[in-house]
C-alpha cells in the first residue's frame, strides 16, 4: 500500500497532492505536459524532496520532512522506468537487467536465474548479449521494464512506458505489467497521456492539472469534460 501526501513549490505552481495506491492496484496518472506527473514520481522515488507531507510504503515512512525522515533513493526498493528508458548503452541487455541485483549483492546464481526468467518473460532472450545501445526503442523498453522488475520492487513506477511501442508490443507489455503487479501484489503507478492506456490497464485514474487533483476514479467513468479539458 502506498500513501502519498505531498506539497512542493514548483516554478509555475504548487504541487499539492494526496492519493493512495493499494497492493496489486494500478493507478494511472494523467495530465497535460508540465502538470506535475513526473515530478510526483521523482518525489516518491526520492530524487526530489517534498516541502511537506508524508510518503508511506507498506507501513514504513519513506519521507516525512517534518520529522526529518528521508530514506535514501537506493534503499526505497522502487522499480522506476524513466520515459527515455535510461537503458545503459555500454552494457548488454543481460547486464542491464542484472545491474540492480549486483548492486544489491544478490548471489550470482540467483542473479542468473532471475535474469533468465525476465529475459524470457519480456521476449528478449535472443537479445541478452546485445549491447543495449544497439536495441530498438521497443526492445529498450522491455529491457528497462525487466530491469525494474528484477529487483522485486515494493512499488513499480513507469513514466510513459508505451510511447516507443507498436500496438502489439503495447498489448504485450501491458499484459506483462498486469501479471507482475498481480503476482507480486505491489502498488503500481503509470504515467500516460493516452486515455486508451488508462482504460486498458488502469484500475484507477488520477487526472492532474497544474499540480492539483482534477479527478480520480475508475478510468471508464472519466467524465467527458475531463477528457476534453485542458488537462488532457
Amino acid at each position, binding site marked *: 500500500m502506498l500513501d502519498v501526501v505531498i506539497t512542493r513549490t514548483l516554478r509555475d505552481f504548487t504541487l499539492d497532492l494526496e492519493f493512495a495506491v493499494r497492493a496489486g492496484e494500478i493507478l494511472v496518472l494523467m495530465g497535460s505536459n508540465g502538470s506535475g506527473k513526473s515530478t510526483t514520481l*521523482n518525489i516518491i*522515488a*526520492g*530524487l526530489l524532496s517534498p516541502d511537506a507531507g508524508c510518503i508511506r510504503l507498506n507501513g514504513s515512512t519513506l519521507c516525512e520532512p517534518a520529522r526529518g525522515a528521508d530514506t535514501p*533513493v*537506493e*534503499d*526505497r*526498493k*522502487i*522499480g*522506476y522506468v*524513466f*520515459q*527515455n528508458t*535510461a537503458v*545503459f*548503452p*555500454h552494457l548488454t541487455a543481460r547486464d542491464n537487467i542484472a*545491474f*540492480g541485483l549486483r*548492486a*544489491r549483492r544478490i548471489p550470482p546464481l540467483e542473479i542468473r536465474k532471475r535474469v533468465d526468467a525476465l529475459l524470457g518473460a519480456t521476449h528478449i532472450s535472443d537479445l541478452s548479449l546485445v549491447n543495449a*545501445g544497439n536495441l530498438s526503442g521497443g526492445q529498450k523498453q522491455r529491457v*528497462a521494464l525487466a*530491469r*525494474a522488475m528484477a*529487483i522485486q520492487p515494493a512499488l513499480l513506477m513507469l513514466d510513459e512506458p508505451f510511447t516507443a511501442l507498436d500496438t502489439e508490443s503495447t498489448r504485450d507489455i501491458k499484459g506483462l505489467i498486469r501479471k507482475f503487479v498481480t503476482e507480486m501484489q505491489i502498488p503500481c503507478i503509470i504515467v500516460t497521456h493516452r486515455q486508451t492506456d488508462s482504460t486498458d490497464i488502469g484500475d484507477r485514474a488520477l487526472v492532474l492539472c497544474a499540480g492539483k487533483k482534477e479527478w480520480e476514479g475508475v478510468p471508464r467513468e472519466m467524465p467527458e469534460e475531463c477528457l476534453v479539458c485542458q488537462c488532457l
Partner: protein
Amino acid sequence: MIAACWFTGKDILMQIPVPRKKNLRRSLTYAGAALLILVVTLYLALPVAALFFRIPPETFFAALGNPEVQSALYLSLITTTITLTVVVIVGTPFAYFHTRLDYPGKMIVETLIDLPLVLPPAVAGVALLVLWGRVGFLGRYFNLFGISIAFTTTAVIMAQIFVASPFYLRQAKSLFEQFDLSYEYTARTLGASPARTFLTVTLPMTAGGLVSGAVMTFGRALGEFGATIMFAGNLPGVTQTMPLAVYVGMEGNLTIGLTISILLVIISFVIMIAVRYLAHREASHA
C-alpha cells in the same frame, strides 16, 4: 541538371538554363574557396614538412642515439605521464563534484580553471616560482625542512599540471554537465550507491570523451616550455624536457634540435589522430 520528380520519386533529367552571369559567379566562388583552403593548408603544413626535409633520415636516426636526445625524451615521457596520471585521478572527481554541487564561489573556481588557458606560460612559471621558490610564500617553509621544489623534476611536473590541466578539466566538466541524469537516477533507484553509480554508469558512458581530454592534456604537457623554464630551469637530465632541449639544440647542435622537433611533430600527429578517432567513436555511439 538531375532532380527527383516530386510525385514519382524517380530521377528525371531537366535542362534548366542557367544564366551565364550566375554561372561565372559560381565558378569564381568555387575558385576563391579552393584558393583559401590551399593557402591555409600550406601555411600550416609547409613549416612541419620543412622540418622533415631539413635533415636526411640517416642523420635523424643516428641523432636518436644521442644521450641528450634520449635524456630529454625520457624525462619528457616520465613527467608527462605523471602529470597525466595526477590530472586524471584528481581532475575526474573534481570535475564531477564541481558539476553536480552548488557551492559558494563556484563561478570563481570556474574562472580559475580556465585561467591557465589564457595566462602566458612564462607568467604561470613566475607565479609558481613566487609561491614555491626557496623564498616563496610556501616554498620558504618547505625549505626549512630541506625540501626544495623549484628547479627540480617535481617543478617540471607542477608546471605541466598548472598549464595542461584545464584541457582535461574543461572536457570532463562539459561531459558531466551534458550527461543525462536519468541514467544516474535509474542506477540509484536500482540500489547503486552514488560511488557505484559514478564508477559503473557515469564513468563508462563518458570514457571516450574523458580519454580524448586526457590525450589533449598529454600533448599540452609534452609541449610545455615557458612555465617549465621559469619554474624548473633547464638542467639536462633533471628539468630539460624535449621543448627545452630543442631550444638549447637550436643554439648549439642544430641536428639535436631538429631531431627532437621531428619527434615532437610525430607524437603530436599521433595525439591528434587519437583524439579524432575517439571523438568520431563518441559521435557514432551517441
